[in-house]
């Protein structure tokens, strides 16, 4: 009797809708669950190939593998190496893939495959123990040359970054002076750079990068220079002094650990081949979510059979929303409140036209038989029970006849909910007796109209995609249905029903 304030209700509905939308947005942005179907994303498949010659003894091969290369995240890792024991060793300084075998002879090939996803936000390694510069010892006359070069570079710079740039520039062949020619030879250039930077007190190290180009084989790593500016490692191209990691560059190795160690083998080398793949964004998101332990938030971890069942179930709220809208706002009369949704679900499985034909024929044959039942003057329960059995006979008959005539679609009639159809026939029949054929036609076509609307909405691939991958959006549907439950305005059909009132205006 009391008139409660509706403000808490509206706040609650608003929270529901806001929660649904924000969780969906979060999942889209953070987990990369795509908003539309069929979205593709590039993935780099990189294969490291280790070749070495067995020396008839126990072999141990240890390959440095990336952990968190800047600009990429690792999707999958996989080793292919028959007969070898394999494990990934993680230490505080590095990650290494290790192959072991008791007896190795002759040429050997080991593979290690990694899938990388380009990701803007992925930053470099999080290991932040501040490195220390290792002072170097120089003999004369190099010591003087180094001192002179470092003095020049320091004069022209203000920070570790600019010092590094200047030093690289001074060591370039076109700007070489006597001092540099004394120091630089072809194969020690990068080592020299690292040593000199360390000497000035800037922690420096080398890194190896892989230039990503589609379908390249036998690629070698390219050396890069990294310095620590006090906060994080910065990457420089040692030839051009360009700072930062180029977009298509994958840093395979960072730090001073060796790339490849082979014990019990000789003539070892490592080469890389790469392939640009496209993977459906959804599959990618699923994999990533499972890795991050967020898979529990979705249905991806359920067995496939349950997943497909949920796919169907999660479409039901869409149907319910449409029924609520049609009945509350439009004012379509249907026979049975949610019968149209169940029929629409059956349509999703049978497709529209065959489903429509099957449904209409079952109901009309059922109505004829129900006419006979009503003349028997049976009690309600046994009449409905008899009707259910008759409906099963009709569907079986239609399936068999359809199959014999070569229509496989005849079989789909079994998707219809038998009990619901029996009740529909019963209601239609009573309606016919009490209100006449016209009302049966109105409610029957109203039900079918709503069922077809619900079917059209539920069968769009977008609806299936959103409801299954963003189950939180059902909070929005729930909010809308709750809001509709408070709708006290005129139905569209009432604008027609009350037309004669024009006379009293």
């Amino acid at each position, binding site marked *: 009797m009391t008139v409660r304030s509706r403000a808490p209700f509206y706040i609650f509905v608003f929270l529901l809708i806001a929660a649904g939308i924000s969780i969906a947005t979060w999942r889209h942005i953070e987990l990369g669950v795509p908003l539309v179907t069929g979205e593709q994303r590039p993935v780099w498949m990189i294969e490291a190939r280790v070749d070495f010659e067995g020396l008839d003894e126990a072999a141990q091969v240890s390959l440095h593998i990336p952990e968190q290369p800047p600009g990429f995240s690792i999707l999958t890792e996989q080793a292919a190496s028959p007969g070898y024991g394999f494990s990934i060793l993680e230490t505080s300084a590095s990650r290494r893939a290790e192959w072991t075998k008791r007896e190795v002879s002759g040429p050997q090939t080991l593979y290690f495959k990694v899938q990388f996803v380009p990701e803007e936000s992925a930053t470099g390694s999080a290991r932040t123990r501040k490195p220390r510069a290792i002072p170097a010892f120089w003999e004369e006359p190099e010591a003087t040359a180094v001192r002179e070069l470092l003095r020049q570079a320091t004069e022209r710079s203000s920070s570790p970054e600019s010092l590094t740039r200047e030093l690289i520039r001074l060591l370039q062949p076109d700007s070489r002076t006597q001092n540099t020619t004394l120091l630089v030879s072809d194969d020690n250039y990068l080592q020299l750079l690292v040593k000199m930077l360390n000497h000035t007190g800037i922690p420096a190290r080398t890194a190896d990068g892989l230039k990503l180009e589609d379908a390249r084989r036998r690629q070698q790593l390219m050396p890069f220079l990294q310095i620590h500016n006090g906060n994080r490692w910065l990457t420089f191209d040692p030839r051009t002094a360009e700072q930062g990691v180029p977009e298509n560059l994958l840093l395979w190795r960072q730090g001073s650990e060796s790339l490849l160690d082979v014990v019990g083998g000789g003539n070892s080398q490592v080469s890389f081949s790469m392939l640009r793949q496209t993977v459906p964004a959804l599959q990618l998101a699923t994999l990533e979510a499972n890795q991050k332990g967020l898979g529990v938030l979705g249905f991806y971890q359920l067995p496939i059979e349950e997943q497909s069942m949920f796919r169907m179930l999660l479409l039901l709220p869409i149907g319910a929303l449409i029924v609520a809208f049609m009945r509350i706002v439009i004012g379509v009369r249907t026979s049975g409140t949610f019968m149209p949704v169940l029929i629409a679900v059956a349509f999703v499985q049978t497709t529209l036209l065959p489903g429509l034909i099957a449904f209409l024929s079952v109901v009309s044959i059922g109505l004829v038989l129900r006419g006979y039942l009503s003349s028997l*003057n049976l009690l309600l329960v046994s009449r409905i029970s008899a009707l259910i059995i008759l409906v099963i006979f009709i569907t079986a008959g239609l399936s068999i006849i359809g199959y014999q005539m070569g229509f496989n679609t005849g079989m789909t009639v079994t998707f219809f909910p038998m009990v619901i159809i029996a009740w529909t026939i019963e209601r239609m029949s009573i309606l016919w007796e009490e209100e006449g054929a016209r009302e049966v036609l109105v409610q029957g076509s109203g039900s079918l109209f709503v069922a077809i609307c619900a079917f059209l909405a539920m069968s769009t691939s977008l609806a299936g995609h959103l409801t299954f991958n963003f189950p939180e959006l059902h909070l929005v549907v729930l909010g809308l249905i709750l809001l509709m439950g408070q709708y*006290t305005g005129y139905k569209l059909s009432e604008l*027609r029903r009350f037309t004669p009132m024009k006379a009293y205006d």
Partner: protein
Amino acid sequence: MDWISPRKLKKLGLLNMNRRNVDYIGRYNERSSFPLVDNKLKTKLAVSEYGVKTPKLLQVVRQQHEISHFREMSENLDGFAIKPAKGSGGKGITVITGRDEDKFVKASGVRISVAMLERHLTNILAGLYSLAGTPDVAIVESLVQSSPALAKYSFQGVPDIRIIIFQGYPVMAMLRLATKASDGKANLHQGAIGVGLNVGTGHSLNAVQFNRPITLHPDTGLPLQNINIDDWENMLEMASRCYEATGLGYMGVDLVVDENEGPLLLELNARPGLAIQMANGEGLLPRLNNIEALKRPHFSPRERVHYAMETFGKH
């Protein structure tokens, strides 16, 4: 297609389905009181304590074996009505108006045997006519002898008066006349005529059939403008008392006028239809708002009726 704009409807104060459900039935009708009106037997017992007369109860058939008593009881009766207690919209009601040797004569003139009536009772007990098919009880009532003043307007059937009672105040009323199209039933959507009644006087206002205004009864040919209900104030008071009996804040009260007994309560309806507004050519909302705005509601049915007659009777 002809449409009326929602703004115009609002101006007329027309109550619509959604608003009726949410703002009136949902707010003023306790769920627990519904069985009281959905079951005619309970209604009868509840209102009798408040001095509201109903057609005389001849027999209640609760169990299958009690059907045999019906044969004895009906032997010396000429007219009676068999009703399912939980039936709605007049479903399952059989009206016997006379005897033809050992056969019973229905209102439509069809003759049926006692055995058929007994089977009808069995069907009622099994829940054939009840809402949701739950087991039911059959009640046998004495026949209403409609007062000739009103009966002449109706084609077969008994004309009844529907009064909307809101928080105990009669807010709107109409007379329902059966027609050939409605098959002797007083249901408006089946084609019965609805005649709006002035709450203040009991005079007819205008009449509609199938939502269209009419001036003459299509079957009896009588003009519908000058119908007057006798003993109007008493009828309103009787309807108003049903509020105390049931506690339902928004309901429809269906009354008939018996030649000998005077006004009798036929049934109560916790979800009264909206067509009464068309028969009155007026919306319910202004009147409902008027009652809701009352700072001090009147306590006795008589006071409420006086207030309503004064307030809603002006035309």
